[in-house]
């Protein structure tokens, strides 16, 4: 889902250094944070917000839609199950290096309860001009401006660069969805494409992928069914085979997860794949112009204001 200003957000691990820093940033940016969780500080207030023993306790006292987690890797599963039990609609998992079987476990629990999960190892979600949830510079007007381009990225830092380039080119964003750098994530690149395909505020999508896994190949199958233009960049063309490039999911194993396979799948699906991120904004501008010519009735203003 795309986070909106009306969504109420609960922060697990709100009292820690990062939890505190980013909760302040989220609030400054317009995110509606309603409370936090720290079992050891239940009953206290932090940043003027109530702190609860668990998400389940918080649900009894304040309602919330979204839970975002600043929790160490080995505590992430229990915290995620708590958020799911509490009825969160969306769970944003920022933590990197969570044991994979723990991830599979809470993703299964989330599927059963109808909780959407973004991440793990994501930098979060940004809806420019409204709010952000996570650790993105959602407050930085050089990077994010309201507009009509949806951006999907496995990487936070590269996603930031791409949004900055779009903003410079006058292309604002409807939302940024960081899907995360792990091999197994809740909301996949394909799922994120579907979110933007259905979003009336989005005219075109930028897909920022990486080598490793098959997320881009699966996304390509969905992209082939879309009417909105999609352009893509895939990081890791110059990466050596068999080395894990920082992200747990970014590794080419033999013939699996290669740059060529991803690029080929996306191009077959009609997605323009650029050699460098700097090519994305010009390609998008052209694609939007083509779409507007093809369908003048539904064409909308895509430049940011």
């Amino acid at each position, binding site marked *: 889902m795309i986070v909106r200003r009306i969504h109420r957000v609960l922060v697990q691990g709100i009292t820690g250094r990062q939890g505190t820093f980013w909760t302040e940033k989220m609030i400054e940016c317009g995110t509606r944070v309603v409370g936090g969780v720290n079992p050891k500080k239940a009953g206290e207030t932090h940043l003027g917000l109530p702190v609860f023993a668990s998400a389940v306790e918080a649900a009894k006292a304040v309602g919330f839609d979204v839970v975002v987690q600043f929790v160490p*890797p*080995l505590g992430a599963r229990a915290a995620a199950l708590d958020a799911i039990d509490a009825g969160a609609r969306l769970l944003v998992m920022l933590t*990197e*290096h*969570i*044991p*994979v*079987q723990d991830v*599979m*476990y809470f*993703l*299964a*629990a989330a599927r*059963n309860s109808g909780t959407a999960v973004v991440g793990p190892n994501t*930098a979060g979600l940004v809806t420019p001009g409204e709010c952000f949830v996570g*650790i*993105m*510079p959602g407050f*930085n007007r*050089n*990077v994010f401006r309201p507009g009509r381009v949806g951006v999907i*990225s*496995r*990487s*936070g*830092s*590269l*996603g*930031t*660069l791409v949004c*900055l380039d779009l903003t410079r080119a006058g292309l604002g964003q409807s939302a940024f969805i960081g899907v995360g*750098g792990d*091999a*197994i994530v*809740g909301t996949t690149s394909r799922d994120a494409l579907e979110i933007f395909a259905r979003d009336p505020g989005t005219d075109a999508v930028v897909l*920022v992928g*990486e*080598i490793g*896994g*098959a*997320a881009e190949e699966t996304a390509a199958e969905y992209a082939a069914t879309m009417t909105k233009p999609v352009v893509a*960049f895939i*990081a*890791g*063309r*110059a*990466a*050596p085979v068999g*080395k894990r*490039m*920082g*992200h*747990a999911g*970014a590794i080419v194993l033999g013939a699996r997860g290669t740059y060529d396979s991803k690029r080929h799948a996306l191009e077959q699906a009609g997605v323009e794949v650029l*050699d*460098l*991120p*700097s090519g994305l904004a010009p390609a998008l501008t052209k694609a939007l112009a083509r779409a507007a010519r093809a369908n003048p009735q539904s064409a909308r203003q895509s430049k940011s204001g």
Partner: protein
Amino acid sequence: MNFEEHVAKAEFAAAGIPVPEGRVVTTPAEAEAAARALGPVAVKAQAPAGKRGKAGAIALAESPAEAAAAARRILGMTLGAHRIKRLLVEKRIAIARELYAAVLNDPASQGPLVLFSTLGGMDIEEAAARDPQSVRRHPVDILAGFAAKDAETMLGGLDLGPAQALLADLLVRLYAFYRARDAELVEINPLALTRSGTLVALDGKLALDDGALARQESLAKQGLAEPLTGLEARGRAAGLRFIELDGDIGILANGAGLTMTTMDAVRHYGGRPANFLEIGGDAYTRAKPALELVLANPNVRSLVVNFCGAFARTDVMAEGVVTAWEELRPKIPVFFSIHGTGEEEAVRLVKGRLGVEPFDSMDDAVEGAVRAAR
């Protein structure tokens, strides 16, 4: 994290999965003694690489003298980058049939996947290509687990005779082992059905999830160290993800995606990256040791510093870089691109203390570095 066969097999045995009787040896004399105790044996190099048979790193020996000769030949061989230091000497088994069994983390189903094939001794993909009917794939609901009835459903129709119940039991044990040990892959190939109707794991592969090392300490201690270069080991010790490459353009960036992209850009403009090094996540505060690491590579002729701050603050990273630069006074040109969180302060630092003007785009910074390295 990967393991040698003998470690995987000791773990299997403890989990109730039968393995051949065997001994780990490091000298021909020990191999000879083991063969004297065990009878006809297989002498197997202990190495992370597969295809040991084809490489001549597994030998059959009928006598203690043959075992000693095989050990003498295999010890000191190199497989991939791995020099053989240990052998597993195992009692030979009378095989009726070779099968395949595995459990692994499956991104497609976002859960565990149990695999079985009646064609052992080959890759599962190879088996599937040769005879799709021979391969069974069972995605597991991790909340419910994998019980004997699931295994029986999975094996149904494979005509395994009296071995079916034993196989079902083995698959349940293998799954329980995979869960208990946070494996990302556990594989038995081949899994032997013996002439006496028992099952024995003839080979064993185990890969542990690196994210779970902290709660699998006793197992992690027995794991294989990754083959690292001197600089890579130094990076690892400093908590930095550093990979040494064969080019001459040093790269320092934050975040895995941005760092890979910087490498791609270097290649795009005709240069060759000297390293992958990202200071993403909490490592953004360690820009100083990171830069020292990049510059310790004597091949580096120019440097790109590419920061795009989100979680990582570019002002904190720039402070680390500038401090390291002032201390080391390297004689190479440096090209900056700095954007995002903390950008104004970071640019001021770089201009003020290094007298270097950051470029407006990553492309320009990279192009400059490539040109300077020529």
